[in-house]
């Protein structure tokens, strides 16, 4: 008794209908958190790219007559102590924060993966030295470390980027090193040597693509963390200073107004920080679930 329709068609081999795109869609459908995260990020991205041309007010334009107005139809997020439209400032700040986040991750990923692959493949003394250095860096909470480095280097956007990137590099070194330690024992690495590849080609052309996945997942998560760290630093007065519209700066400025009952000046920038970081986190966590070996749906 045949109970259920089997895979179509009745005879002759079924062509592999399931292309990669179709499979990707199927996987996406089963991870609602990934969809939620992507939606959030899509909104943020849209705002970042198109926002500044859509908002009615200039972010730096002060208007002392309209200071500290609560959210209204004219000012969707209200105005701050200088009469500047908060929505415009938040939207403009998006560009800066995302720029910082992506720069940080690009640097940390680039350096971390390169060093991790090299260290893991060659092992020995070099590996020991690299591991001890990463141990030292990881011993500090990343925020504190970034704080210290920024304090030393001085307040500017590049310095903030460098400071946070330094704190993140060890994660990428560790992740990639872990992958390459097992990848280099695989037969295809040996085969690559056998056909005549030099060590550098083996490491960076053959092994690297197979070792990147955990690092890419971590990169997504780091994008969220970087926003938190950068705005955290700015909130404390380090790195980026007013009047630059950065979300942390906005929260810091707005924090003075809470006492007087004007909650919106710090709430909205804060909420945007949280939502953006959350969006990256959702996507990153879902990516980790999807790419982990136990998720093989085959």
């Amino acid at each position, binding site marked *: *008794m045949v*109970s*259920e329709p*089997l*895979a*179509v*068609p*009745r*005879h*002759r*081999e*079924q062509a592999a209908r*399931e292309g990669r795109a179709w*499979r990707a869609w*199927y996987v996406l459908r089963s991870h609602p958190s990934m969809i939620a995260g992507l939606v959030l990020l899509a909104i943020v991205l849209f705002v970042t790219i198109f926002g500044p041309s859509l908002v009615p007010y200039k972010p730096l334009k002060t208007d002392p007559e309209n200071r500290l107005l609560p959210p209204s139809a004219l000012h969707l997020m209200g105005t701050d102590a200088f009469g500047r439209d908060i929505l415009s400032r938040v939207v403009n700040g998006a560009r800066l924060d995302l720029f910082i986040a992506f720069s940080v991750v690009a640097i940390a990923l680039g350096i971390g993966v390169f060093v991790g692959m090299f260290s893991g493949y060659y092992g020995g003394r070099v590996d020991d030295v690299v591991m001890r250095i990463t141990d030292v860096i990881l011993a500090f909470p990343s925020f504190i470390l970034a704080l210290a480095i920024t304090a030393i280097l001085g307040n500017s956007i590049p310095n903030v980027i460098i400071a946070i990137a330094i704190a993140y590099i060890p994660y990428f070194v560790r992740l990639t090193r872990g992958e390459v330690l097992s990848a280099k024992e695989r037969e295809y690495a040996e085969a690559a040597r056998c056909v005549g590849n030099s060590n550098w080609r083996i490491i960076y052309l053959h092994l690297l693509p197979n070792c990147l996945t955990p690092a890419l997942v971590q990169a997504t998560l780091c994008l969220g963390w970087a926003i938190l760290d950068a705005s955290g630093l700015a909130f404390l007065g380090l790195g980026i200073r007013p009047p630059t519209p950065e979300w942390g700066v906005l929260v810091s400025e707005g924090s003075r107004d809470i006492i007087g009952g004007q909650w919106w000046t710090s709430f909205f920038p804060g909420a945007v920080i949280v939502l953006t970081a959350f969006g990256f986190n959702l996507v990153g966590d879902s990516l980790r679930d999807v790419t982990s070996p136990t998720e093989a*749906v*085959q």
Partner: protein
Amino acid sequence: MTAHDEPLLAIRSLSVSFPRYNQRVRVLDRVSFSVDRGAFVGLVGESGSGKTLSSLTAMGFLPPSARVDEGEVWLNGQNLLTLPPEEMTRLRGRKIAMIFQSTRSALNPMMRVGDQVARAIRIQKRVGGKEAYAEAVRLLARVGIADAEKRARAYPHQLSGGMCQRVLVAMMLACRPALLIADEPTTGLDVTIQAQIFEMFLEIQREIGASVLLITHDLGVVAETCQRVVVMYAGQIMESAPVASLFASPLHPYTRMLMRSVLRVDRRVEPPGAASVMKEEITYSILGCRFAPRCPVALPICWEQKPDAESAENDHQVACYNWRGTNGTGHSG
């Protein structure tokens, strides 16, 4: 027909499917075979044939995503598929036991092997700890482990693959099951160790009178140890016969192909002709005989409808519409 004539294990028309994206793939398709009391039956097939899955179903070890679409597994008058889980747990070890391929992972890495065997003993008999341990050492010696006292204190990772396999056999001896399923028990073991293991296996089987279902892809092992052979391909039963009959005159085109592909150590085998170069891909989506795409004598009906097992002489059954149509290459040598 008395109870003694009934086979010990009878699988009837078993179909199991797995989900694949939004479809279900029928990995086992109306599989039917049986194991008589005291018999040594070989279940032969290549990868993807479903031989392991059939035995896992019999043991009740199907993963949660698998579904039994139809069929029964009869053991001693009970349909194992309808048993509640507690009943099934009671049967395992006592009536039906299984030895897996990856021996080391079948043993608990945190427990000394002597203790593991002792534990198996205590499940079967009400004996105290000391007595069970003594018995365990005795069993370890019985399965050919030299220096059993000392080895009983070892952990699985300290033992070689062959020794781990012997430990599993010792545990099985403690349980004295009526049916033992051995799934490629010597994979990864050296051939000299393999010979030792099978020798020991056959002795034990004769001693406790168990029936054995040996799952393997090695026709040599089948020829030397089994009384009856069941041949599977892509989740379907192709042929089943007494071992001499299968080797002397394989009837199913698939079996014939296998026999021609087997390498031998006692003489140089002829390379197959160009006509026998076959594709490998297995499709589970054919309603009829799944060997049809590769079969040299396939008829149109073969794709549409699965052939029932037909009896040729001598308890030799073949599931093929066209087994009489020779393809010119005849029987195996």
